[in-house]
Every structure is written in structure tokens, then in C-alpha cells.
């Protein structure tokens, strides 16, 4: 149900852009105004969210420790899994961001009622798909910088060359294009076919998958089917960058579909689960050192709570304390 709603939503969005340009001739709106507004919403939304998160204090130091602590000198500690200082915590957070460390631990629980046995099977599919999706997305994004800069720096070309290493098709099909689409399809299939994941999935989980698929497929269509005029595209993007909008002419509707879906993605980002991207930097179970007993962590709003004091306790149990022969503060 959630999947269907999301699929229809993305299809309608794509159709809107297609018709707007093909029939309505709203090229200025879809080629200039909407992308600009979307980019602004994205920036403001992310900044707003970061400020909101940043302003919430971290009252307690609560890392989840996944390795041996630093205690006695002769016991070997694990400085990344259980960081004792700031550097370890930075490396640990980086390992989550760059390599999805925790997801790499994934196992699948299996139950055999007849043999009365529970087992845990290592499973890396989700990790592989997640790594493929995110790293491919990063490279695809970097590849797009060739539209934004003139002249194109050497290292961009190197990335592009490596990405097109297999020399399949004309123009060359990039490896990351394939990885990106395949990973999306796997994640989608997993949501639909794995009963547990289907149960927990909301429309908000399917929507970004379909949206990214839409972005990817429209991009592929532009490059390999419609063969869009790169010079026109570059001119349009140069227009954005210099705030002197150019309405691209001579490019097909696929360009507008692509740009519109990316615009939707940008607007959607700060209001959705896609916030996991900035959020992972701020996760207190990962980005804090387990130095609790060595260095005091200060809670800025530490409430002035006093417990049951010794004097109150002694007063309450005075007779019993005396009968049991306890030393007393107040005779």
C-alpha cells in the first residue's frame, strides 16, 4: 500500500514535469524557478535542522561500547570500538559514516523449533547494498560537477575514466550508474519481500527509493536515449550559478523531469528520514568517548535534586541504629 502510494506519487511528479514542458511550455518555471527555490529550501531546511539538533544539549555521555574499555595498563583495549578519547571517537564516527561499521555486524536470527535451536547467521547483503547505493551516489554527484565548473579539473576526469573503466556502450555506461540502480532495486525488493521489513515500512520509506529511481532513470535516459545537448545543459547550470538564469532550449523533456525530481528530493530532504545523513554525525552513542570515569561530563541543566540525606535517614532510624550499635552523627 505504502509502496503503491509512493510509486504513484513519483510517477505523477515525473508526469507533471513532462507535461509542463512538453505541453505547457513552462520551461522557465521548471528550469529556473523550481530548482532555485528547491535549493534554497534544502539549504535553509538543513541549517534549521542542524541548529535545532545542535541547540539540544548532550546531558549525559552514553556511548554504546562495542569493545574492551581502557582500564588496566596490561589489558589491551580497543580504541575505536571503545574510544577512550576524542580521536578514537572521531575515528569511530568516521567508520560509521564511511564504512557503515555497525551495519557490517548484521546477523540474521534463525529459529528451528523442532531442534529447539536459535542461530545467528552473518548476513552482509544489506551492508553491500547500502555501501553500493551511498558510494555510487557520491561518485554520481561528483561526476555532475563537470557541469558546474569550467574547465573540468583533471581529477574529475580521472574519476570519470575509472568509473567508465568497462567501456560498455556509447556513451560509456558508468559502473556507478549500474551500482546505484541495482542497489535501489535490491533495497526496494527487500522492503517488499522480507516480511519483517515490509511490516515496518512506511510510505516515507518507499517514496525516497522511487524518487531516487526516478532521478536515476531520467538521468540514464538523458545520457543514453535522448542524448541531451551537454552544451545547453552547461549553459543552463552556469546560469544558476551566476544568478543570470538561462532557459535551456533544445533539450528534451527528460532533462526537465530529471531536474524536477531532484528538486523534489532537495525539498523533501530536510523534512524526512533522509536526515540520517547529517544526523549520524551527532549520534551520542557513537561520537562520544567512553571516558566517563576519567573525565567528568557536565550536564548544562543538571537539576538541583537532593536525595534522602544521611541526617534524615539517621533521624528516621535512630532507635534501630542505636539498638544495633551503630555509630551516630547526632547522639
Amino acid at each position, binding site marked *: 500500500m505504502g509502496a503503491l502510494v509512493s510509486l504513484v506519487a513519483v510517477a505523477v511528479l515525473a508526469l507533471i514535469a513532462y507535461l509542463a514542458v512538453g505541453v505547457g511550455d513552462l520551461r522557465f518555471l521548471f528550469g529556473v524557478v523550481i530548482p532555485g527555490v528547491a535549493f534554497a529550501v534544502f539549504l535553509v531546511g538543513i541549517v534549521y535542522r542542524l541548529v535545532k*539538533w545542535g541547540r*539540544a544539549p*548532550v*546531558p*549525559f*555521555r*552514553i556511548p*554504546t*561500547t562495542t569493545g*574492551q574499555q581502557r*582500564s*588496566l595498563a596490561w*589489558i589491551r*583495549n580497543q580504541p575505536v*570500538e*571503545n574510544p577512550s578519547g576524542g580521536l578514537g571517537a572521531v575515528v569511530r564516527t568516521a567508520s*560509521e559514516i564511511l564504512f557503515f561499521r*555497525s*551495519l557490517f*555486524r548484521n546477523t540474521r536470527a534463525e529459529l528451528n*523449533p523442532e531442534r*529447539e535451536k536459535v542461530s*545467528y547467521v552473518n548476513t552482509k547483503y*544489506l551492508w553491500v547494498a547500502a555501501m553500493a547505493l551511498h558510494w555510487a551516489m557520491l561518485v554520481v554527484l561528483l561526476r555532475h560537477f563537470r557541469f558546474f565548473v569550467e574547465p573540468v579539473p583533471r581529477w574529475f576526469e580521472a574519476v570519470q575514466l575509472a568509473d567508465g573503466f568497462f567501456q560498455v556502450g556509447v556513451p560509456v555506461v558508468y559502473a556507478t550508474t549500474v551500482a546505484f540502480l541495482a542497489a535501489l532495486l535490491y533495497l526496494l525488493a527487500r522492503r517488499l519481500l*522480507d*516480511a*519483517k*521489513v515490509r*511490516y*515496518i515500512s*512506511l*510510505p516515507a520509506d518507499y517514496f525516497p527509493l522511487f524518487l531516487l529511481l526516478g532521478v536515476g532513470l531520467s538521468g540514464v535516459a538523458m545520457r543514453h536515449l535522448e542524448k541531451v545537448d551537454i552544451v545547453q545543459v552547461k549553459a543552463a547550470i552556469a546560469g544558476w550559478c551566476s544568478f543570470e538564469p538561462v532557459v535551456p532550449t533544445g533539450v528534451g523533456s527528460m532533462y526537465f523531469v530529471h531536474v524536477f525530481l531532484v528538486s523534489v528530493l532537495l525539498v523533501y530532504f530536510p*523534512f*524526512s*528520514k533522509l*536526515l540520517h545523513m547529517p*544526523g*549520524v554525525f551527532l*549520534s*551520542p*552513542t557513537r561520537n562520544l568517548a*567512553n571516558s*566517563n*570515569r*576519567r*573525565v*567528568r561530563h557536565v*550536564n548544562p541543566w543538571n537539576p538541583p*535534586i*537532593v*536525595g*534522602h540525606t*544521611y541526617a534524615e*535517614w*539517621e533521624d528516621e*532510624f535512630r532507635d534501630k541504629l542505636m*539498638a*544495633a550499635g*551503630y555509630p551516630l*552523627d547526632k547522639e
Partner: protein
Amino acid sequence: MAEKTPHELLQIDLDPPRSDWMDPTIDFEARRGTWSYPGAAKNLKYMGFANPREWSPRDDDWKLPENWQQIIHDGIKERLTKYRSFQVFMDICVRCGACADKCHFFIGSGDPKNMPVLRAELLRSIYRHDFTAAGKLLGRLAGGRKLTPAVLKEWYYYFFQCTECRRCSVYCPFGIDTAEITMMARELMMLVGLNINWVIEPVANCHRTGNHLGIQPHTFRDNVDFLCDELEEATGISVEPSINRKGAEVLFVLPSADYFADPGIYTFMGYLLLFEHIGLDYTFSAYASEAGNFGLFTSHDTIKRLNYKIYHEAKRLGVKWLIGGECGHMWRVLHQYMDTMNGPADFLEVPKSPVTGTVFDHAASSKIVHICEFTSDLIRNGKLKLDPSRNDRYRVTFHDSCNPARALGLFEEPRYVLRNVCNHFFEMPENTIREHTFCCAGGAGLGNDENMEMRMRGGLPRGNAVRYVRDKHGVNLLTCICAIDRATLPPLCQYWAPGVEVSGVHELVGNALIMEGENERTTNLRGEPSAETEG
């Protein structure tokens, strides 16, 4: 004990139904054995907590305050601005499902709302509905739900079906910690008077008498005396520990179950023998007679209130530093909360072992050392005379208690101690120990009798791992460093791995210690023959 046999209980399907989860109905009557009784009015009144009254989850009317929705809404709002953890964890979950089958309660029940992601969604759906633009605009389509009485009942059921063990947070790619979410949900429920008696009564007891069990000071002394007598009978060693003595070097704090109930009392005897062996200048306190802290299962304010007495008493007695006994959640509080809440402990000194001279600089600020850290340092420096063959009747495995594992990373210290005090040590499978350890399913206040079926269900992963080493290596003793474990693992083993007993690590230390002037030690602290038993 659970009414179902282990085999019946194992008929579990981990695949959820195709239906939607958003419309809850929980028939508390039909689900007897899987929930805990509510907090008694007298305990709430004593603590000054909200809405004391007599009620049962089975009732239709839970006698909530009239504006309960507003109270909870405001409570969420306040906590979002006070805890970055809460705000971030509400916003960033992608529902990837990596956590789904990591929860012992899910594995043992197949109830999809015990998947950590969905447990969090129970609260997150309300957050989205009340506090996010998408939720306000699109409602259910954006995963938002209105806070209805049925939703609140579901909160009560599932947030008191989480032991805050943090296993799921090990696997989460964003480190989302369900314990943190459960703690927030329990705080919110506290605001309208929803809590369970197995938490609230210990809290009230602890506030009044100094310990969860409500043991008053004269009884505390009687218990200690009684255990000293038992110790003398078993070993011929007479010890006279001091209580509330000013000027001792060390204040020793511990979970109250260790001087109250079998098998914790044998661990207690182990502490006594160890300290006698090295001549430690220490004292107990009848006022700070509990370092465990059920405030952790109540609210942050209650943690602070109950933890107050530790430093307060250390200061009054003029001790130099602290040692803490074997207890799991107690150590989460001592390690992650005490110094922040009730510190700085600048009136204490950086802990230094009087026997080995080792400075415990990893506790330089909070000034409290875990007894396994203390003992492993003693062993490493050759300061203990040990005869591990006195534990030869045991084939031993070690259960990493959730909090020492995932809040401290205390993995090697207890293992080092065990390897030096017994000859037969075997690890359980690697996915069930260390940071992957499975909960006893009775933590966070759930270790009560009325919740027995759920405890046995949640105990399945641990019990199954114990059974594996029992069958493979003949293991007959499950050691642990947690008082809740020592109370909850015996019935769990009886149910899932019969023939395996439970003990603390320092019970085995006590057995192995060669004391000056001791009797011929033919029996262990339990009065059982020390020699190896066959068959």
C-alpha cells in the same frame, strides 16, 4: 514458572502478518504472563510521583488525569529540547530493519512490536504527528498517529517489555539506542501515573531505607553477621566487616540482593574473603546500602535522587575512594551518570590499590573502581593465593551482563579473574557474548513473577546459548557480574538449560582463595563438595 512447556513456547513465527501496525488493541487479560503489575499507590505517594491510585491494566478506564494527552505532549516537547539523543533518534531512523531480530524479546516471542525499530515507532509516530510538518499535514501517510488511550496502553505494554539492554544499538548504523527511547517513554508515562510496581516499590524502598529491598539498618547488620557466621562455618575464617565506619580507606557499595538472597550471598562471602585476604581497610554503609538504582527504569530525576547517597556517604565517612560490587545496571549508573549527576567528587582521591600500588587513572574523576578491575589487578600482581582446583566441580561459562558490556566494555577483567580461579572455562558462541551478549530478560524491572512467560521468551537466546555449551562442554555453572542476573538466570536456566547453576564471579574467587588459618576446604561456599563431580 511459565505455564507453557519450552517446546510449546518455541512455536514462534518470526515473520509478521501482512496487516498494518498502527491500530493497536492489547487484550491484557489474554496476555497474562507477559506484563507487570502497576505501581502501588502507596509507593507513588511516598515518592511524590504523579497520579497515585489503585488500577489494573485489565481495566478499561486507567484513571488518567483529564488532560493526559496535553501532559504527554508537553513532556515530549520538553525532552526534545533537553536531550539531543531523543531529538536525533526521533528524526533519523530509516527503518532499515537491521535491529529487528536483535532483540531477545522479539526472537522469543515473534511479536513484531518487539522489533526495536517498531518499539521506537510507537513513540516516534506520536512525535511525527505532533511535532513534524509532514506529520501535521499528512497524518498517517507520513507515519503519524494521534495519541489515543489505545496507543498509551500499547506504550505501557511494550515499553515495559524492553529491558534497556542496548543490544539493538550495537547493530544500528546510526547508533539509535532503544534504551534511551524506552527511558523517555517511561518518563512520559510517569507523568500520568503509569509505571510498574517491580520498579516503583524498590525505588520507594531505596529512598527510605537505603536499599531496594527495604532492609532497615538493624536488619542489614543482622544479615551481614549471619553471612559472616556462614562464612566461618564454611571456611573457618572469622571476619568482622565494619559498617558506617568513618575514616576507612574504601567505601564498598554493592547491590542489596548480594546480602539478601541465594545465590548472591555466596558472591558476598567472596567479597568478604577477598578483602580479608588482602587486609583492605574498608567499610560498608547501611545508609548507602544499595548502589543499584531502579531510578534508571523510572526517570533521570529519580536516578539522581537515589544515587545521591553514594557520594554523600563517601564524604561523610571521609573515605578516600570507592569500590563497586558486581551489578549490571548499577554500573551503568555509576559509570555513565553518577559523576555527571552528583559529582564532582573532588573530596575523594584518585583510586590507588593499597596492595599493588596501581593507580586506577581510568577512574580519576568518579573515583570508583569495579571490583573485577580491582581483583584482576591483584591477581596480575601475584597478590592472591589461589587454588583454582577448588572450583573443579564446576565447568564454567560467563554471561556478559548487558550494562558492563555495552556501557563500559568490561570484557577482559572478569574473564581474567575467572581463568585464574577455575580450571574449566568455556565461552558461549561469539554472537551471544561480549558486545553481542543477550539479556537475562529480567532487567529494567521486568524480573517479576507475573511477567514469567515473557521472561522465559526473552530468555530464549541466552538459554539456548547456555544449553549449547552445557551439551558441548558439560558446562554446569553460568557466572555473571550482575545481581539481577543472579536472580533471573536461575529460573531461566531451569527452563531452557536444566542442570546449569548460576553464580557471581567473586563466589569462585572466594572458593579459590587460600586463606591463612583456614579449615581444610573440602566444601565450597555453598557447602557442596569442592571435588569434581562425575556424571
